[in-house]
């Protein structure tokens, strides 16, 4: 999720400090409304952020473990195998992100490999994980 929560908090304070009221009531009202919304979403992200990343990293690693043996490209297979055995060093969001970005890059390469080889079953498995990823990261506006 970019921008990260810390960035949003910092820039929201900066925006407020700029004196948005000087721009006129209608604009200030709109800006405050949006600030309120992104701060509210930030609170939700603070609550669920680590859980989302840990779950996603676990599912991608499991997928790699499942599909690596059938990948013909030996270099990719080795990277998938290694990544499937990796773990998140800490529960800090920055550490989880670093691991997640590596896994997502490798996931893209795995999908490309499956597309190029016409490996339909592998593609279906990958899309099941991608669909779950997208659903889990969907930002809900309600309470």
């Amino acid at each position, binding site marked *: 999720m970019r921008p990260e929560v810390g960035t949003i908090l910092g820039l929201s304070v*900066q925006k407020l400090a700029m004196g948005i009221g000087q721009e006129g009531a209608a*604009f200030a009202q709109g800006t405050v409304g949006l600030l309120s919304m992104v701060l509210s979403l930030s609170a939700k992200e603070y609550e669920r952020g680590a859980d989302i990343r840990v779950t996603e990293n676990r599912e991608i690693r499991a997928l790699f473990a499942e599909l690596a043996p059938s990948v013909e490209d030996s270099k990719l297979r080795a990277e998938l195998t290694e990544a499937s055995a990796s773990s998140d060093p800490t529960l800090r969001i920055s550490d989880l992100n670093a691991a997640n970005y590596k896994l*997502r890059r490798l996931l893209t390469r795995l999908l490309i490999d499956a597309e190029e080889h016409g490996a339909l079953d592998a593609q*279906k498995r990958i*899309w099941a994980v991608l669909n779950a990823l997208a659903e889990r990261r969907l*930002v809900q506006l309600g309470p």
Partner: protein
Amino acid sequence: MNELEDKLALYLRVKLAAPDLTIANLARIPGGASRETYRFRACYAERGKPIDRALILRRDPVASLIETERSAEYRAYDAFHKLGLPVPEPIALELGSEALERPFFIMAEVENCTTGGIMSPEPYGPHRERVGRQFYSVLGKIAAADPKAIGLDDFDGAKTVRDAASHEVARWEKVIDEDELEPQPIVRAALRWLKRNPPPPAQKICVVHGDYRTGNFLVDDNGEIRAILDWEMSHLGDPLEDLAWAIDPLWAGADPARPGGMIARAEALRIWENASGLQADPKALHWWEIFASLKGAAIWISAAREYEEGRNIDPVNAFSGWYCLSVHNRVLAERLAAEIGA
């Protein structure tokens, strides 16, 4: 604000040949995230008759949500206003920075209207049917217009019916390549799918509005569409590009059967076909619908970068990078998975 008011008055006194012109009620208003938008009144005398005009100033910001070409936007307003479509009358365009520090243009304000909210389940309330019929009819008329006849055939975009799709994919892939802050496996998969499965050639090359959707037009209390806004992404391309963007699930998507919170999809397509004289070929439209969500994702990725790097800290950019991108990622994942029966 006083300094801007003074400079604006100086500029308009010359532009409108009205030495007594004064500016009143200058206020910035929300909306149009890629330009600063102000409402004001210009009061002056014309042949002895007092004039009180409600006007809108659209000025370039320091950094923009999307890099757009301001003269193209102004010329689109001008061309479609002259064609008789509900488009605000353009008044003046300045590409230099002398008058108001940054380039800007001025147009007539269409008063006593509202826009529909993209997150509202019922953005047009009891007028949804009436608004929807006009919405797709006007879009059909935009598609029907001959770019050469309305003086916009030099616009950026596709040059032939065969390159409309590839031109747009290349355009937005470049944005993603430049602005991606984190790996986007779904967006990248969408790009590959779009390239592997090109749509049929466009039926014609038309002026594509580029952001024709719920929230980008003004409606009066009677449900009459009075002004199509935000032509800043207008370009030459496939007429189906606008249609697919208009029915994208992000816009008031509470009920997928009524895209944009207006009329039923089948009726929308029929009205568009009648007004444009073109076909909403299902296979081609399907490609453009996936493209629409990819284009949206590219815009939101770009917005997140603008925000994170501090070039534009309007909270709408943070919201776009989170909410809008998460919706388009899900839409793309569902549609692309369905392509292989997953």
